[in-house]
């Protein structure tokens, strides 16, 4: 059976001053019911555009190709009306910053119930009752009263919970969580991630978590896909990809995570940044887009475009040299990057 969401060879081109430029280039992944899949990558790697594509909310003039099938239906060719019926109802979104994603001057109750009533045809009182239940589910204290309050009256973590309640209100089957914890304190992050995990278990909700933070991935995702400059670098089961990364970029992201305990351990480095910065839209280098920043680049990397190939069960890798050791130990490159 086909999974709930199957994205195949997705290509999204955005209009820039110099014409259309690919923001997402040949991306493929699946999300099954009750599964949490993470997409990781630095800003500008096309993560958010992937989510916008699935909702049909790309900026004017954007062009898509490839395929994104949700429950057997092709999303890329849906009409405006069909997309609107799908948004919120089937696929919902929680975005990065709850302080800007919630409407500042509409009461929480309105924001939770408006699309619920629109999509499900509930009466005002039925929607209210359901909203109270939903706010309780995401652990908002005194949900009755919260309905009449405004987003500004809640803390950041509470707001993100409300945003999740808003996203869940019309009982969607797939939740797109775009950097759901980036704006939050670490302690609050853990609560939000646990909430996502609980919702997936209790409701069979499929979640696509988009983040630059591999720490968030390792906490909840079943499978992860690492993107660089709009392309897939590596994807596979979470434990496999994060414990024994095969792509130098994944390795780099892992090394860029702070390890405070490393201060006492001379063998480890507290935090090793990836040199350089990701290419901007339209400036993607030929060959492997990561090769200018890669410590393991060989001459072929600058010319041949790497395609993702299976290297283990469910593990795809777009790095033909495949230079990393299989035991997950941090490698020490011999020379400085070219």
């Amino acid at each position, binding site marked *: 059976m086909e999974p709930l969401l199957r994205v195949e060879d997705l290509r999204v081109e955005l209009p820039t001053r110099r014409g259309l430029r690919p923001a997402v280039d040949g991306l493929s992944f699946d999300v099954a019911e009750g599964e949490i899949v993470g997409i990781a990558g630095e800003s500008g790697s096309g993560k958010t555009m992937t989510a916008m594509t699935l909702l049909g909310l790309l900026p004017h003039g954007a062009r898509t190709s490839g395929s994104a099938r949700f429950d057997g239906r092709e999303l890329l060719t849906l009409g405006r009306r069909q997309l609107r019926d799908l948004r919120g109802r089937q696929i*919902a979104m929680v975005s990065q910053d709850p302080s*800007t994603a919630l409407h500042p001057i*509409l009461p929480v109750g309105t924001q939770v119930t*408006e699309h619920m009533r*629109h999509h499900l045809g509930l009466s005002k009182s039925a929607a209210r009752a359901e909203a109270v239940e939903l706010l309780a589910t995401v*652990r908002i204290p005194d949900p009755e009263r919260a309905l*009449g309050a405004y987003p500004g009256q809640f803390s950041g973590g509470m707001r993100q919970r409300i945003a999740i309640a808003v996203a869940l209100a019309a009982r969607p089957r797939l939740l797109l969580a775009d950097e759901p914890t980036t704006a939050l304190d670490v302690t609050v992050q853990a*609560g939000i991630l646990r909430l996502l995990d609980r919702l997936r278990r209790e409701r069979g909700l499929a979640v696509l978590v988009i983040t630059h933070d591999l720490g968030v991935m390792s906490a909840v995702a079943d499978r992860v896909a690492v993107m660089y400059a709009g392309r897939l670098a590596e994807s596979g089961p979470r434990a496999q990809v994060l414990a024994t990364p095969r792509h130098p970029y994944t390795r780099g992201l892992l090394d860029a995570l702070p390890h405070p305990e490393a201060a006492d351990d001379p063998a480890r480095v507290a935090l090793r940044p990836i040199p350089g910065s990701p290419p901007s839209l339209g400036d993607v280098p030929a060959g492997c887009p990561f090769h200018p920043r890669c410590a393991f680049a060989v001459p072929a990397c600058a010319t041949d475009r790497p395609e993702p190939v299976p290297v283990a069960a469910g593990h795809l890798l777009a790095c033909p040299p495949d230079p990393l050791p299989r035991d997950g130990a941090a490698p020490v490159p011999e020379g400085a990057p070219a």
Partner: protein
Amino acid sequence: MSSADSALPVPVGRPRTRASRRDLWRFLAKRLVAGAFLCVGITLVSFVLTQLVPGDPAAANLGNRAVEDPAAVAAFRAQYGLDKPLPVQYAVYLGKLVRGDLGESQQSHRTVKADLAEYIPATFELALFAIVLSLLVGVTLGVVAAVFRDRWPDQVLRVVSLAGVSMPTFWIALLAFFVFFYKLGWLPGGGRLGPALTPPPRTTGMFTVDAALAGQWGVLGSALEHLVLPGLVLATYTVGMLLRFTRASMLEILGNDYVRAARAKGLPERVVVVRHVLRPALISIITVAGLAFGSLLSGTVLVETIYSWPGLGQYAYTSAKNLDLPAIMGVSVVVAAVYIAINLLVDLLYGVIDPRIRLS
């Protein structure tokens, strides 16, 4: 797992309580006291200004007699207290003002209060018609322009708003008078009622409202017909102003994350535009609407004079022409009070629209 969940901070919200209602009263009281002081300040400014104007009220009012008959001039001066030193004149004026006595008009020989009572409703009717029309048309077109940004409706409306704000009112007034009254004869060219009709029994002083209350439909029709031309002319500038401003603030709000979030919820575009975009945009729109009302009041001087509309604007014009000091002062006080009231209303509306203001 739930231990960490419940350890999260509780909402810092505060429901609307009796305390916040008391805050509202305190705010109102403060603003009203400040408004009263402002009114007094304005009387001082207009008092001084009228004294600085070169010209002699006695000469202006008595005409040739002022030259021929020094006794009449002296009597005139004594009658209106003009023979006393300026500070005394001002003190006397203020003392009377507090008791609600605005003095006697040197022109109409009636009390200024009686004059104002007659003219204010006429102007209020005209200004109300114009501002309601401007808000309906200006805000609606502004929303259309923002939604169709850079497409043909927006291009057309850009020209419309530019024309609205850049054509001088006196010119539009004369043009409209010439076209719709003189050439086409579609609308009456002046006055508040057809010559054969008598005004409806006075309740509010606004002919349209009074006629409707009395059930005199013929009178109501005629009153509306007379209202259209000066009302439209008066609204031209404010429509252009509100259109531009509505478009600009709509576009600003449209770029927000919460609008994208509203679209991601699958709401119909109409709901997104009205509830999620127009509502927050209204905060800046009403600020401009308050200013627009002010510019509208000053526009009445011209429009009322051209369309012989017996209102405050025309009264202000004739009083100024004749240096009728009590009348000028009376108009100033009324206009100042209206300005203050409008600003207070705008401030209160902020709170109605934006809970962040209400709750802080």
